[in-house]
């Protein structure tokens, strides 16, 4: 067998622990980013201009300054300012959460705006409180539409995790790089690494498709099982508004 794969299987515990770090950063980052998206996204629809302004500023700031710079700033610059060094993984999670939370807030805002006006009016006519209106009428419908763009963001986040290698957190990329250095098999090592990320991305897409199906089922829309295995490019075709990874949408 090829020397790289021999090394790969001999060092399987390290590979798995690297995978664990990547998974941890992805999941923690995504969960916090998701929460932040809702906070910022709901703030963007607030009637008070100050609340809207705060949300806008935070969103534009974290979208406008590159993720890469944010991560480096947290890891290298912050300790010089405060004298307190955060762990590499923690820095990664915070940077991913802030950056993708900012992008996610646009998804939340767009999803809420896409719920037909009549639904709002009906909720008012039924004398629902603003909280009930959001929680029972608007969000369930908006959520089903938000899931495909959120899937894209989740994959983007996964794709950003190799940045952890640069601030020496022992993620999947770091471990495979070490194996490459030891065996000298560059091409095989990097292709293996890409395949690993591809598999993780596909699993995440599948899980998000399941989530989308259950969100739609709650609205009484049955979507069938075929769509579950579709990839993101197949999913994106019918909904024209492409959620860009950057810039304004």
């Amino acid at each position, binding site marked *: 067998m090829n020397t790289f794969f021999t090394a790969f299987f001999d060092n399987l515990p390290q590979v798995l622990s690297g995978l664990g770090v990547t998974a941890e950063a992805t999941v923690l980052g995504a969960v916090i980013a998701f929460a932040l998206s809702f906070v910022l996204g709901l703030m963007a629809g607030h009637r008070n201009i100050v609340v809207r302004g705060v949300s806008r500023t935070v969103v534009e700031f974290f979208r406008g300054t590159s993720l890469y*710079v944010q991560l*480096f*700033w947290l890891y290298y610059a912050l300790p*010089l300012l405060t004298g307190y060094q955060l762990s590499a993984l923690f820095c990664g999670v915070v940077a991913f959460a802030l950056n993708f939370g900012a992008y996610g807030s646009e998804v939340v805002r767009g999803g809420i705006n896409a719920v037909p006006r009549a639904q709002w009016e009906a909720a008012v006519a039924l004398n629902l409180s603003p909280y009930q209106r959001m929680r029972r009428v608007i969000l369930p419908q908006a959520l089903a539409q938000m899931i495909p763009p959120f899937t894209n963001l989740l994959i983007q986040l996964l794709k950003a995790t*190799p940045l952890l290698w640069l601030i020496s957190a022992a993620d999947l990329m770091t471990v495979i790089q070490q194996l490459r250095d030891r065996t000298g098999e560059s091409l095989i090592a990097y292709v293996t690494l890409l395949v690993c990320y*591809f598999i993780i*991305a596909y699993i995440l897409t599948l899980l998000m498709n399941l989530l989308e199906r259950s969100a739609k089922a709650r609205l009484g829309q049955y979507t069938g099982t075929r769509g579950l295995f579709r990839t993101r*490019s197949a999913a994106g075709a019918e909904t024209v508004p492409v959620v860009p990874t950057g810039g304004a949408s």
Partner: protein
Amino acid sequence: MSGAKFDWSAAGEVLPMLLRGFEITLLATVLGFLVGAVLGLLIAIARRAPTRFVTAPVRGLMEFIRSTPLLVQLVGAATVFSSVDPLVIGIIVLGIHYATYTSEVYRAGIDGVPKGQWEASRALSLSPVRTWRAVVLPQAVRNVLPALGNYAISMFKETPFLAVITVQEMVFEARKYGADHFAYTEAFTLAGLIFLVASYPTSLLMRKLEKRLGH
């Protein structure tokens, strides 16, 4: 240097270096985006080919490139093709990576061209090449310009990845200055602000363009 405060003299010192690096950043963005925009269009057209032997592999490869990290692709390409100039590698890899995104944008644009336009071209017995060039693409591309612009902005913000393969763009300069003078705060703060100052007005411009095209 105490390092506890933002040091304005260090900031003044690092700024010219950052701006020099910024030229490379812009160069990589513009060239990389050109590659991405052209290649993306070719992919979008290939995906409408009449046979599955073309569409299936193209789609598979696209899905693979788009689901895997740019950083790994860059480092991998730079290591495997170590004799090629890193800037060239960076531009090509960025271009290919973003082509997978722009192709989706074009696809949405092409799908948005009404079926009647295709039928009319057929009725006028235009050749396939003329149908694409004179009828479909002018309409499709016009509609997707803002979306393409947004990808250009997001590519711009991903150019710091090139620093990893030793391209001396802005963040590379920031890291170098930070390491030499132990002044990361000034270097990275300024680098981040330069990104913000450059990308925010551009994204406002795109939003305006979007409104004007009636999205």
